[in-house]
């Protein structure tokens, strides 16, 4: 063993994960193969980073509460559409996002989100989404309007 533990511990803090796993051909990897204490420290680092990865994956999963993002149509109505989440959720339980592209038809002034949705979708479109998917692209009766559902 040519590297001492103090030097190995310093290198552990910046080494590539492959080196910590002993997959590299390096003085540090050689030390880790021979020193149980430093091996334990390397294993703790790898385990901690795996925990962090799993936690971030958990945090980056959609919440279970239905939510609607207010979005400005690509062009057309010229004002931000602010949906009433509760009534919209009644129309399609887990819909989270909506895109209006090239809206040719003007919504009635003061229309609620539910009224707009009923104007655009004769039937709840969520039923037409493919199984196993969380995004659906739907054409409406207006060829100028496409809806992207994120649910």
């Amino acid at each position, binding site marked *: 063993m040519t590297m001492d*533990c*103090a030097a190995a*511990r310093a290198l*552990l*803090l*910046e*080494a590539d*994960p492959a080196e910590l796993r002993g997959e590299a051909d390096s003085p540090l990897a050689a030390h880790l193969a021979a020193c149980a*204490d430093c091996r*334990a*420290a390397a*294993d*703790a*680092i790898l385990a*901690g*980073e795996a*925990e*962090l*990865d*799993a*936690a*971030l*994956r*958990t*945090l*980056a*999963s*959609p*919440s279970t509460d239905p*939510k609607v*993002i207010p*979005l400005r149509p*690509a062009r057309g109505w010229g004002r931000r559409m602010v949906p009433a989440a509760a009534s919209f959720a009644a129309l399609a339980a887990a819909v*989270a*996002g909506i*895109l209006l*592209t090239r809206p040719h038809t003007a919504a009635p002034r003061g229309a609620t989100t539910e009224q707009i949705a009923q104007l655009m979708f004769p039937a709840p479109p969520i039923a037409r*989404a*493919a199984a*196993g*998917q*969380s*995004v*659906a*692209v739907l*054409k409406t009766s207006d060829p100028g309007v*496409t809806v*992207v559902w*994120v649910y």
Partner: protein
Amino acid sequence: MPTTGAEPMEAMVARARAGDERAFAELATAVRGQVHRWALVRTGDADDAEDVAQTVVIRLHRHLHAFEGRSRFTTWLYRLTASAALDWVKGRGRRERAHLASADPAALSAATDDRIAALENERTAALVRSFFAELPARQREVFDLVDLQGFTPAEAGEMLEIEGVTARAHLFRARRAIRERILAAHPNARDDR
């Protein structure tokens, strides 16, 4: 970047670009989790990240035709996510709270802290808090891309539009901070000699 089993990502992108809406839905579903993760790490806010991820799906639909394959799709998508994250935070007037430019330990939102607190392991929760509160956004991004998601420093640099050597410098600083925190939480692995 996740794949979708039978069909390579590139083929799905090509079909979606050609106007196949079903392919777009498959593509968006396939990348949504990845985009959400990127948005979370970039903004440091769980709620913002979810909103950004949904916005990116919308923008993907609007702008996919502009993807010409000059860069990898992953790189293009990352930049789309970064742009959406910046716009989202600007739009809400909360740049100072979203960690985009600095690491403010007091800036974790209550919603984010609640979701971290819901993690089963307290030690993991403390590590995640440190990740967000102690690391500047750029260090978080590089560390997550390289050490947790398997991109090379050069790829991360391209995604973040920084030099590879700069990405490596951020990576080493982030590793040191995270690993010191991990070892501090593992008494048996500390160097007590």
